[in-house]
């Protein structure tokens, strides 16, 4: 008894998937290394075993597109420090609660008496601020261009309504600078990209065209369901085999070349481009978003004076190499030994979108 679900089942059709796999096998005459940018795509690939079904000539490597994974340890430590304060209600997407700082995570802060709440939207956090005027409500604004519009909207709305007990702890990052960093590395192995569909839904794909030209790589905006992923892989393989370094949209039901101009304007109104640390990777210039000066009063780092907190990564964790596609999770000596979801050394083992967690949860002994 499996009732069909529109807009989902069409994209999970096993017969269609088999057809696309046959086509990929037929077209892939050389060995190609393709990176899916987004952690959501990584999980869909591993969960559905798409990597097991591809021919040996196609190697998928997993990209940095997991917001939880790339949020720097300093930001986590700052969140923990703020969340532990008595006057604070700390709000966050659920995924962030299990990410360890040096010694504890947000769950532990909560069990020690901190008011830490899971929200589904930053606008819910803003509502908590309206409902609790005597409290300081902080939202952990992490993520890529996908979360940026809603996070910006919450700040914009707070400013418009004069809500002064609301701040955001910002760790926003952007995809194109990360792609450039990966492609510029002397160790780079990536020959083509599946671009993250939801990021492109906001930003469009025009901004990927210069990357494709400059680094001579095909880039294919791709969805998240198995059939969409296989269609994206097939298109990338075709472009690679034909030697074309182009951007071709394979997520037409959601993505346009220009993206969503209203969302982009909301981001621009509130945020400006800034340098940003990526967990495991390091500083990537111009890769992040920070609050504009006119919204600085909504910056939790400043309000709670936590800018001087720093943190040390575990020397065993190789998540930086994993996030850049240089190492597969199960190639890490600590994988499933010192590092498990119960005792993660790095965020890639924690998040539901982290590559290490995907391998651990679905892949451990199957392959």
């Amino acid at each position, binding site marked *: 008894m499996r009732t069909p679900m529109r807009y989902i089942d069409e994209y999970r059709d096993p017969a269609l998937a088999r057809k696309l796999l046959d086509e990929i096998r037929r077209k892939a005459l050389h060995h190609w290394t393709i990176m899916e940018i987004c952690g959501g795509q990584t999980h869909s690939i591993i969960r*559905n075993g798409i990597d097991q*079904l591809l021919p040996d000539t196609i190697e998928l490597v997993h990209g940095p597109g997991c917001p939880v994974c790339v949020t720097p340890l300093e930001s986590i430590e700052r969140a923990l420090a703020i969340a532990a304060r008595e006057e604070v209600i700390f709000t966050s997407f659920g995924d962030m609660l299990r990410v360890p700082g040096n010694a504890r995570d947000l769950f532990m802060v909560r069990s020690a008496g901190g008011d830490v709440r899971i*929200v589904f939207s930053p606008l*819910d956090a803003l509502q908590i601020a309206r409902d609790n005027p005597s409290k300081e409500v902080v939202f952990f604004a992490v*993520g*890529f261009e996908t979360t940026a519009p809603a996070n910006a909207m919450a700040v914009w709305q707070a400013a418009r309504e004069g809500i002064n007990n609301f701040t955001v702890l910002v760790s926003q990052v952007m995809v194109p600078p990360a792609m450039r960093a990966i492609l510029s590395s002397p160790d780079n192995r990536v020959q083509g990209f599946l671009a993250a569909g939801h990021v492109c839904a906001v930003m469009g794909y025009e901004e990927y065209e210069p990357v494709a030209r400059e680094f001579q790589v095909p880039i294919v905006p791709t969805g998240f369901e198995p059939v969409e992923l296989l269609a994206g892989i097939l298109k990338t393989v075709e472009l690679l085999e034909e030697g074309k370094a182009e951007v071709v949209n394979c997520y037409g039901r959601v993505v346009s070349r220009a993206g969503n101009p209203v969302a982009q304007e909301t981001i621009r109104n509130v945020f400006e481009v800034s340098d940003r640390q990526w967990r495991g990777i390091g500083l990537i210039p111009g890769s992040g978003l920070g609050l504009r000066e006119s919204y600085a009063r909504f910056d939790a780092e400043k309000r709670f004076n936590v800018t001087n907190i720093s943190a040390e990564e575990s020397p065993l964790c190789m998540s930086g190499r994993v996030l850049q596609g240089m190492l597969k999770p199960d190639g890490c000596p600590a994988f499933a030994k010192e590092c498990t979801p119960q005792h993660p050394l790095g965020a890639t083992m924690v998040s*539901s979108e982290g590559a290490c967690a995907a391998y651990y949860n679905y892949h451990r002994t*199957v392959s």
Partner: protein
Amino acid sequence: MTIAPLCPTPIMQHETIQMAHGAGGRLSQALMQRVFMPHLHNSFLDLLDDQAKLDLPPGRTAFTTDTYVVSPIFFPGGNIGELAVNGTVNDLAVGGARALYLSAGFVLEEGLPLVELEVIVRSMAKAACHAGVMMVTGDTKVVGKGQCDRIFINTSGIGTIREGVNLSCRNLKPGDSIILSGTVGDHGMAIMTSRGGLSFQSRIQSDCAALNGMIGTILDEQPSAIHAMRDPTRGGVAATLNELAQSSSVGIEIHEATIPVKPDVRGACELLGIDPLHVANEGKLVLAVTAGDAEKVLDVMRTFDLGRDAVIIGSVVDDHPGMVVMRTVYGSRRIIDLPLGEQLPRIC
């Protein structure tokens, strides 16, 4: 001039639970008489002794306990009261026992409306009657505001184990069929979508139900076919299958295409990024059955409403002992692991 001094008498009629309701005095007695006894009374409880004196039928006795802290206490498809009765009845039934007697311990938060308590007690009585068990002893405590979440209920249960039945999670043998009695994830998703904080609404109803009727008939008709039974509550079918595989040191392989999921539950799980196999059920059954008898067991189950959608979802295998592996609809394989802990909605 006459003076008629009015001596203030204590207020005895309250609309909400007061600390005094748990103090053992007159208000405690009033609570007993007004709320509990009208619904739960029976020949044991009516004696108002500190203990129930029971004559158990001959044979082995099964004894179990569970504490219910669900929030919200009223949810689509049920409430904490019927959950507390059905859950404990099911824990006895999956061990092959006939559930006979239950106890109930209540921890009430000061300020709980009495009408809500009464609705809960009434549905406990109804659930007990439906399952054919008696509530024979109980206790009530009141704690201050904020010291518990409205109401917590502990129920314990006693039953006698059917002769010749030996169910254990260590009994799985390679070749056994794995049967699931119906759709997965209904209870957990009913709870999750009725909690505050989610901005979408659903029609998902909890599957909260007593399974002892169906289980009794299965064991009456196919006593030697069943190796193990579990009700997949917290952690969902995934946790139950993992426990079975680990206890018996065997592998379990299931087939994605066979797992029944209601469309609303699927939709909510898709939105939240949660695997329905990890979501709690409160009226479902997982069985490990001798392969040759699986169809006969299915025939029995399908005569019950609770087993209408029963289906074989996989089998016990020699490979990967202690692990559960799913064959996807694409033909690939993936591990079905124990859920790590709290189900966390994803970021994007």
